[in-house]
């Protein structure tokens, strides 16, 4: 997607006047330089204009069950995204020795397994702890065309996988009292990281995140996924000292809070 064109759409006054569902973001930015503010609101750009009545998900409680419910919602999102992409034919089947299709078939299979695994972990779809799949709009009201434009699909895939890694990491503390669930979550977490590495490398990036850079070709709107990734002090140790800040930040992935992930996910929930 042409990023300039993308930002340009938010300079349209008519969009600014429409009632957004991102009420909090709206209020937060007030009247100060609205266009600029919109352009910097992660992932939320067109959602403001187009999603007046979104059925937002809310932050799950900081409990083991809450962590699983939260994880399930994210896995629903990823699972549906890849299933729709495979159905749409947007993923090239023959280039690079069929690499892209093989990669996304494998990722889709994992996400589907994760959904089933987490539903079972919550006690099945009849359980009181079960959460239903939200309704997703991966075009975000027509802003993205992930199932018609492969580069957009790749960009969103990268954003979802890097978000997934940070999201699971942020739930670790909520699972510390339930060792088996913690282990299972870690076992999903590292799969998401493998996915993220491969998708990033398909896009010509490094498999790891340098500083808080979203990387070439990523829409500015995805910056929320990378906010705070540039940390170079870990428990008081300067990770940038030996080889510089990029290497130091790459060596550690940072967590996202439940609310940060919810804010990202809600942009795709209608």
């Amino acid at each position, binding site marked *: 997607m042409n990023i300039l064109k993308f930002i340009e759409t938010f300079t349209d006054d008519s969009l600014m006047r429409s009632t957004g569902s991102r009420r909090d973001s709206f209020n937060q930015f007030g009247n100060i330089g609205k266009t600029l503010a919109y352009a910097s609101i992660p992932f939320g750009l067109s959602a403001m204009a187009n999603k007046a009545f979104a059925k937002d998900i809310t932050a799950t409680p900081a409990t083991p069950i809450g962590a699983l419910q939260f994880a399930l919602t994210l896995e629903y999102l990823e699972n549906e995204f890849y299933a729709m992409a495979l159905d749409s034919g947007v993923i090239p089947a023959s280039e*690079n*020795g*069929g*690499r892209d299709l*093989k*990669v996304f*078939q*494998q*990722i889709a*299979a*994992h*996400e*589907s*397994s*994760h959904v*089933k*695994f987490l539903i079972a972990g919550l006690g099945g779809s009849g359980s009181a702890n079960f959460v239903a799949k939200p309704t997703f709009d991966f075009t975000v009201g027509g802003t993205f065309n992930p199932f018609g434009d492969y580069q957009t699909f790749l960009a969103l895939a990268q954003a979802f996988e890097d978000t997934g*890694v940070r999201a*699971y*990491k942020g739930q*670790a*503390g909520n699972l*510390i009292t339930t*060792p*088996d669930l*913690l*282990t*299972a979550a*870690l*076992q*999903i*977490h*590292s*799969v*998401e*990281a*493998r*996915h*993220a*590495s*491969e998708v990033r*490398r398909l896009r010509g990036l*490094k*498999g*790891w995140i340098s500083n808080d850079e979203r990387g070439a070709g990523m829409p500015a709107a995805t910056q929320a996924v990378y906010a705070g990734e540039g940390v170079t002090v*870990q*428990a*008081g*140790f300067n*990770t940038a000292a*030996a*080889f510089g800040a990029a*290497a*130091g930040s*790459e*060596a*550690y*992935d*940072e*967590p996202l809070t439940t609310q940060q992930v919810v804010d990202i996910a809600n942009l795709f929930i209608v």
Partner: protein
Amino acid sequence: MKNEVKIHEVDPSLNNRRSFLKLSGLALAGAGLVIAGCSNNDDDNNQPEDTSLPGVRNGVFDLGSGDFGVLTYAYALEQLEADFYTKVVNATNFNSAFNDIERQILTDLYHHEVIHRDFFKAALSGALPNPSSQLLPTLAFNYGSLNFNSRTDVLATAKALEDTGVAAYNGAGKLIKSADYLLLAGKIVSVEARHAAAIRSLINPNSKDFAGDDIISTSTGLDVAKDPSKILPIAGGFITTKFTAKYLP
């Protein structure tokens, strides 16, 4: 070998006395102070051995248990990875055996693993009650017939080390009591998994091996998680410095 380390015997009575002093809240009394009547026998009889602390027991360094044990275990694994990639990037034929992308990846991995190793050394040195005797020494390694100038050998070993690292951290998470340490381990394990995927993809490009069915369960979509007792025999094949992990599962 340059970083060959002999683990020196520490007088066990001195060691126990120090622990006793710490546990009695008398650490500030200083190491030179010997408390009359606090004999080795008394320690054995009255003071249960604190197995959570790493250190030399019966002449061999033991990793300990609990958070210190897990961090020391991670430090041992990161020492191995850092040493391996240091040798990889310094190998005579590094520039000819690998293409640009491969060299970039292996150099990044060298940086990341050295940072992880030095991080654990610093973290443990700051957290252990008595790091001079409780910090795992610099380990010595022997890679046998591994040819560091062979692309095939290096990538196959890197794959094994990274997959092992992921399984080790995944298995160790539940042993960690402190949420802060758990998060730190989480910050590192996903980077190890990113490494594993990249190396696997170099070995077999245009495939699903980055997260292949050999490592990710096809029914649950879960990665591997292993206890230290399953990991150490694998990693131990390269580590020549003897140590034990008697108090880790």
